[in-house]
């Protein structure tokens, strides 16, 4: 990597996720040397997003679904920030708003102190360079009519960066794909390999922040472990700030140092992973933790009935599957 970015390469401030024994790759830029001040790198304030329901009657107003009802949170540089929630919690909506791919109904998102919410696309160049997204579906997020080389270098083309050939080779190498992968088409790769392509694309502009929307939910168990390791390696090597959205508490607990638990468009609990996972304060967090089946738990005799009881326990409003007919995440 012939680094053209202005940050210094010394590592005087190893952050919380920094490990002395982590691999240092060729030409990798030093960790978080950028003068960020002490403010959060991503700041979300009172974010509200409502979707209009599809009209079903000629005479009645269709009403609205509140996907987000006043979410505030700070993500600091170097954090691995996990957002956990079930369907309809608004976690994906939040992620899209953080990436300025959608406009909030009210509230603001700021990146390094600059507002990004509601800003026209042509003035978002600074964000597009420094913040990238990896999506859930490794097939759906790659244009089937584009070759892998074009997919990976698309952010560079869009931002007008040069020397794309060399960068492509670096990126393929970094995510563990063969050198000739660039000439092929997305459908010629397995799910895990496609997610590597998506990760390579997200890293192409050397972003500071990586947003990941359920990047391993569509993958098989053994491939999931490979991709989680890859993400962890890359976050360490490139000093990324990671925002990781998932329905799976165990994955978030594994990868992240901070967790925010969302439910029905609100953050119900947030804190360091160890605290939230070991000593959950909110009843919903306890319910979520209790409902997750684990191999050790099951082998220790936790059967389905126990699991169901734990999933229901302390829940004030009964069966969570009850009542919701329109899930906000499915709204347009």
């Amino acid at each position, binding site marked *: 990597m012939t680094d053209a970015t202005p940050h210094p390469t010394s590592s005087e401030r190893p952050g919380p996720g920094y490990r002395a024994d982590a691999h240092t790759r060729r030409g990798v830029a030093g960790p978080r040397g950028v003068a960020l001040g002490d403010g959060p790198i991503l700041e979300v304030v009172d974010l509200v997003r409502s979707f209009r329901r599809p009209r079903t009657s000629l005479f009645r107003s269709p009403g609205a679904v509140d996907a987000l009802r006043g979410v505030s949170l700070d993500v600091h540089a170097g954090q691995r920030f996990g957002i956990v929630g079930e369907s309809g919690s608004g976690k994906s909506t939040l992620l899209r708003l953080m990436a300025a791919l959608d406009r909030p109904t009210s509230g603001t998102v700021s990146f390094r102190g600059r507002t990004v919410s509601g800003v026209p696309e042509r003035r978002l160049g600074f964000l597009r360079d420094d913040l990238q997204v990896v999506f859930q579906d490794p097939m759906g997020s790659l244009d089937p009519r584009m070759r892998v080389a074009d997919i990976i270098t698309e952010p560079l083309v869009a931002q007008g960066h040069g020397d794309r050939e060399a960068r492509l080779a670096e990126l393929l190498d970094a995510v563990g794909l063969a050198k000739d992968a660039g000439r092929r088409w997305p459908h010629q790769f397995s799910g895990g390999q496609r997610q590597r392509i998506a990760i390579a694309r997200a890293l192409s502009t050397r972003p500071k922040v990586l947003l990941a929307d359920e990047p391993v939910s569509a993958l098989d168990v053994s491939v999931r*472990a490979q991709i989680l390791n890859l993400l962890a390696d890359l976050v360490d090597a490139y000093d990324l700030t990671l925002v990781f959205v998932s329905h799976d508490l165990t994955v978030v607990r594994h990868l992240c140092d901070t967790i925010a638990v969302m439910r029905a468009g609100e953050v119900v609990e947030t804190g360091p992973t160890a605290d939230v996972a070991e000593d959950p304060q909110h009843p919903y967090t306890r319910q979520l933790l209790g409902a*997750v089946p684990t191999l050790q738990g099951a082998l220790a005799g936790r059967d389905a009935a126990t699991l169901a009881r734990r999933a229901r326990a302390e829940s004030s409003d009964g069966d*969570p*599957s009850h009542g919701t007919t329109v899930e906000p995440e499915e709204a347009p």
Partner: protein
Amino acid sequence: MADQTVVTRADDTAAASDDRLVVDGLDVRVGLVGLLHDVGFRLGAGERVGLIGESGSGKSLTALAIMGLLPDGLVASGHVGLAGTDGNLLDAADVRMADLRGRRMSMVFQEPMTALNPLMKAGDQVAEVLAIHGLGGSGRDRDRRALELLDAVRMHEPELVRRRYPHQLSGGQRQRVMLAIALANEPDVLICDEPTTALDVTVQAQMLDLVVEGARDRDASLLFITHDLAVVATVCDRVLVMYGGRIVEAGPVQQLFTAPRHPYTRGLVASSDLDAVDAAGRLPTIPGVVPAAGTFPAGCVFRTRCERATEACAEPPPWTGQYDDGHACIHPYGDEPVARDPEPRPDPRPDPHPEPGVSEVTS
């Protein structure tokens, strides 16, 4: 070698008399491409057996072959026997299979939105499966029975739900409707194909409870297909591990997950446990990718990704051990458990990053 395998397993099969479902030497192929090879297992009365494997392993195909629902162009051979019916279900006429399906054996699919008729109310779909098999008396009786069934899967406000169309229900409600339909005619065998994969964890927990309870109350045998090891361990007594269209290991849950013998099972167990990491905080992985269906290596299907593979693995490994407790590997692990201490532990493998791409970069 392969013949020998079949013989021992078939002998074992004949010995058991209280088996509800016996599958033996099941092969499925499309054209010249084999998709399933010599799949054999049996379900005892009231037994709950898990079938685990990654995508492309052939686990769903196994279920479809048993139910006689294979897509056109796929040909099954071998033997599938259901207690109380004569002969091989693979040879049975469509009419006879249709009569057995939904009555003697039924299935819950992964995606309830596509498995339910979008233009039919939930209650009517439950009543329909009663009507098809000539049970449940008059139309009014059937409606009442449908309501009872919806209530039995602990549906909130079943009166309201039965008048709703599938798109008006949540994912969990739809899957409960599917289960009510599957259980409507008190089947002997219930097959669930990833029934909770599309559901939230809290909903999944309820659904797993319902499946176990539904099968137990009816003394039905359960074949539970999933990729999630923790779910299988929660639900089942016994596990079958599939890879590349073959069953590579079988055994009781406790034994198979604590001391797996087949390297594939071992890799699967290790990589699914997100709490067991190495000193660098990384997960153990199985190197490489799952080959596409029909492109698995000859001989041992796992040998291209296996650390223990030798030239001897080019021959199909014989089945070792009992019919329902054994493995197909010539280099099995012994009784040593999979290390799973939550503290960082030294990784037994020479390379802490067996994942090929990343290790290339570091070297």
